[in-house]
């Protein structure tokens, strides 16, 4: 069972501010998913490797050639807060003792 604490922890990890109502809603949804998902855990997978790519493609590598970058105005154009050619963000909390 997923409790309220789990939901809060997931929300913190995923940086989602949730309302009280949403916390309850997602707690319920996550639990009902886990009930349905339990079926998956009964499948015998002892003989297989996981699939992380839909098809086994051979990756082509890119030659080390410098291409065009965007003009600074285009880079910053959609930025909610910009300053002097930079994106601006509020205080990064990571205090030290």
């Amino acid at each position, binding site marked *: 069972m997923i409790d309220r604490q789990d939901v809060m922890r997931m929300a913190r990890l995923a940086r989602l501010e949730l309302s009280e109502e949403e916390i309850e809603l997602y707690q319920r949804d996550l639990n009902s998913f886990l009930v349905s998902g339990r079926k998956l855990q009964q499948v015998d997978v002892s003989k297989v490797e996981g699939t992380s790519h839909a098809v086994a493609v*051979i*990756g082509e590598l890119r*030659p*080390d050639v410098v291409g065009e970058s965007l003009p600074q105005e285009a880079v910053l154009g959609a930025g909610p807060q910009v300053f*002097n050619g930079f*994106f601006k*963000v509020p205080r990064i909390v990571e205090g030290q003792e």
Partner: protein
Amino acid sequence: MKYDIVIGLEIHVALLTESKFLCSCATAFGAPPNTQCCPVCLGLPGALPLVNEQAVEYAVRAGLALNCEINHFSRFDRKNYFYPDLPKAYQITQDVFPICTNGYLEYYIDDVLRRTTITRLHLEEEAGKLVHSSGSIVDSEYSLVDYNRAGIPLIEIVTAPDITSPRQARLFLEQLRLLMLYMGVSDTKMEEGSLRCDANISLKPAGSTVLGTKVEIKNLNSFRALERALEYEAARQSRVLEQGGEIKQESRTWDERSGRTLSMRSKGDAPDYRIFPEPDLPPLRLEPDWVFRIRETLPERPLERLHRLEESYGLSRYESTFLVNYADFCQVFLELAEEGEDNTDLANLLMGDYARLAREQGHLEPQRLAGLLQILQEGLITHNQGKAVLEELFKSPLSAREIVKEKGWEVLKDPAQLKGVVQQVLTANSELVERYRGGEEKLWGFFVGQVMRTVQGKADPQMVNELLKGELTQKS
């Protein structure tokens, strides 16, 4: 109680590619902010990464240089965490299947060759750069983000915890830096962040096999910082243990100003990076032939060169170490030196005045330096004049021989001519000659000086000495 120190290092090396790891933006340092960015390295919706072949090659080269196994199959993973300098909110890295594993690096501690195990080496992308409004992350009201650096290729090199002293850690890192430089994979400029090091350190009772709780130290931006931080931390942990305390597993940061490590308070949850295979990039498969070709063309490693200088060029450990540490000097040396001969003179020239001038003004063409060596060996000029010629070589386009000629610095080689000068000096100072003969031997230097001044230094000191001796003793 006595404690053994256990240290493991994690080193990030920025690779010297022209373009970024996963897009084609330039990697040049120092461009105006956010001018080397594109949809990929900005993490714009829908943009997809593409691996730079050169970054892979550099990683393999570094891995081979570190005697690693090169894995023909490796895979990229996503490491998820939020931070303003991380455009996609995940870093593309290699977690489960790194490109290189299980190697080692050898280096000297005093005269003893030591070996440190390299657990793994993997490719990953760099984050952007943060500028904090007050200069420090702690009390800044806001921060500014520049994504020019975001997406530059890095290799992360992880050692086994088999380093046993802060000094050893520094020597290891110095050798590693040199190796990366020799391999041509990085400019290794610590001041620009091209080489960064985190250290894990723990203490255990001397001789015990049970490891203690480790502490991670971040922000070690110089060799000195690495050694000092480890020394401080070893002492701190020892003090805590002596007092019956417990070491907390944590990350600490090195504070250069106070010379202390400070705990980086982690608020709340332990990090959970939710690492999973990167679906946008197929696994990396390396052709054995391709790896073989890189192995075949691997540049000489610094340790190999050290041994070669000692064995084939007759240099001491001291001289060889100097030349290996300064690869540019070494290149000059190797162009001019003769294999199988004693090249001590050349080494000393390079290490002395030449080093001082070259560091200020850049290197001379080795052939111009060779010209100087040549006329010194011929005895065309004195050693002292050699210094003056060297200075001129840095200023003038002329060859050493031409400089000597132009300045009229050839040594007076005719003993008769020099003898005349000596006699002239003694005659002019007959009173002093008497005093010398009377036992005032310290006047010898005065006579030498007078002779040299008269010939403007262009005499072989040994010949001057001999002639003076002859003249002064003759008439006694």
